[in-house]
């Protein structure tokens, strides 16, 4: 097969006009607004519905809101959630008649796909996707978030209803 070479003019062969055109394009950007951000020193501004790491919350009385119904474990598409149900004393005044609480609650952050289905399915409003992102670690074990870590990340979520108090 014969390859056809384009016939170049003298200017083309000179190469300078192309260089200059390229330089002009670059120079035009100098006075414009910059897109680049200095991550990680400068953080992104996240939009309202941004879905970051799932965390567990306590209510204003300091109770763990999760009652270990295991719906999030059931719904989780990548099976990142693992729950170990446990009991709590329903007669203790601090527990306000809730009988169940997770003994441990593990989210495997190497698996989580930040889909938010756990938050959507939760009947207790106990799990939320916070805006935390860029979760890293040196070991796999560091990315297994256990109950204590999740509660620490989650903090307190004001509960206007407190349904268990009315049970």
């Amino acid at each position, binding site marked *: 097969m014969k390859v056809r070479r384009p016939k170049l003019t003298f200017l083309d062969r000179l190469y300078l006009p192309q260089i200059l055109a390229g330089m002009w394009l670059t120079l035009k950007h100098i006075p414009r607004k910059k897109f680049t951000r200095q991550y990680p020193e400068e953080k992104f501004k996240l939009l309202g519905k941004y879905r970051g790491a799932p965390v567990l919350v306590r209510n204003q009385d300091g109770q763990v809101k999760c*009652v*270990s*119904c*295991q*719906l999030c*474990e*059931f719904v989780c598409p990548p099976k990142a959630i693992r729950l170990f*149900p*446990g*009991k709590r004393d*329903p007669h203790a005044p601090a527990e306000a*008649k*809730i*009988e*169940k609480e997770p003994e441990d609650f593990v989210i495997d952050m190497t698996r989580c796909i930040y889909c938010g289905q756990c938050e959507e399915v939760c*009947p*207790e409003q106990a799990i939320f996707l916070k805006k935390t992102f860029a979760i890293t670690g040196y070991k796999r074990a560091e990315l297994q978030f256990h109950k204590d870590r999740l509660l620490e990340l989650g903090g307190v979520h004001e509960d206007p209803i407190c349904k268990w108090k009315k*049970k």
Partner: protein
Amino acid sequence: MSVENVKLLMDGREVLAAPGTNLIEAARLAGVEIPHFCYHPRLPIAGNCRMCLVEVGLPQLGPDRKPVLDADGRPRVNFGPKLTIACNTPVSEGMAVLTRTPRVIKARRGVMEFLLINHPLDCPICDQAGECRLQELAVDYGQGCSRFVEEKEHKPKHVALNAKLMLDDERCILCSRCIRFMRDVAGQDCLGFVARGSRSTLTCYPGQEPATNYDLNIVDLCPVGALTSTDFRFRQRVWFLKETPSLCPHCATGCNTLIGSREDVVYRQTPRDNPAVNQCWMCDQGRLNYKFINDPARLATPLVDGAPAEWPVAIAHVAQRLAAIRAAGGQVAGIGSARATTEELFLFAKLFQVLTTSPQIDADAESETRPTETAASLDAVCRPGLRPGANAGLLDSVPRSGAADKFLLDADRNPNMRGAQLAGVAAHPPGSRLAELAAGIARGEIKALLVLGEDVTAAGIGAELLAKLELLVVLDTLPGATTAAAHVVLPGASFAEKGGTFVNAKGRMQQLSPAVAAPGAARPEWQSLSELLAAVSSRALRDGQPKAANAWNVTTPVFPSLGKVFAAMAAESPALKGWTLDGLGSQGRDV
């Protein structure tokens, strides 16, 4: 049948039902489901939940007591002005039932609304969620939100009725199934309702608590989460459980069960319907007898002289030492547990057949015992593949008995003693040869003992006798005094980890199926026995001259699958002629 079936119309579809059938069952025949809470096919009818209301019409009769026909030649049906409960209405000739009319749907929605008024809706912490009739029917007939603005009625919650049962009265829908079960089936009238109207509460009579061996059946019966099992409570959500049809190994009744497991952990056993065996009940002892499956102490690696070994090495080792003992004229005896499956016991017996009839090894074993004429008729049937008397003196099972009740619990606590007799392992009566075996060991005649799933130190063969043996091979699941004394330990699978059959006290052969995996390298005993059989019957053994250690390496077991073992057993046993493992189905077959 002498009684003629009754023809009726169920939602316009013709159904033939036996006289006396109620409308819920007749609807089931037509493939129509009538929602209900209080009705249960195996309990007396109470008719108090009002969920099964349907429209019932009867054919109009003329003065001649013949149905009046309409213009199209069909009998004219007169529907009643009010709805009727389907559970307590028997079928009658020409009856027409409508189960999906707007009136019926409206009635069901009304009943659901009333039931949900005081229901706490704590499904997130309720163990019944996922298998709750109220939850299911609320999806079909419930409203999006409640019209009830008043405070809900509060009743006792998390009350421990006894050590096994927890009661939550707020969840109770007052169906009275538990009351009827305790009164009419379990025979202890101890539950009842107190107070009236919306304050009606289920409770125990003062000073009484359910104390039968069948209490936990009311947990299965309860259509909601009012009664829950303390054992299963909060341990796992039911939608994660894989339900495997199996059998209860607690006694010789062989109740049909479902094993609820998740990721190789067994969480519960529930009864499975079998009209010929346990109807739909099981006893609490049997139901709670599953914890050893998850025991961390379970045997998980083959042990040869106390050291872990690979399977082929362990099998070859046993075969080699057995050959050496036989060549030196020593006897080999076996104790096969009647907790093992029939297939395993068959292979066990087969193994002894090969060991005792190998031409060069044993010449006098056959003259030792002659078939006895007095053997029971079962005995004649129960020796598949064994030349009568060939090794009858050297095999037995350990009997195990307890108090029987008049309902399901059998005095024989071995699930498969009939199977052990069928396979020719157990003596008649079972255990009668154990003393002989012990004496044989004491005299030093029996040099090797094979034990299948039994702790023989509890059966008269103590540690001092075991110490006299040249070879003690134990196939078992849990460590014990016998495995401690064993030269070779081959880890086995529990009833929930393998397939196989049990023959119950009434001679019904039923199937187990594997629900979970055995721990570590442990595997079903039939596989080990099958390989051992292959090793023992290999040419090298028959020549009595094991040449090299690698000659014992087992590559092809005799039986590649359990179905093949069953087929071999069926081929050799007249009682099982033409049977297949799959042919047993879910309900079993009478031998």
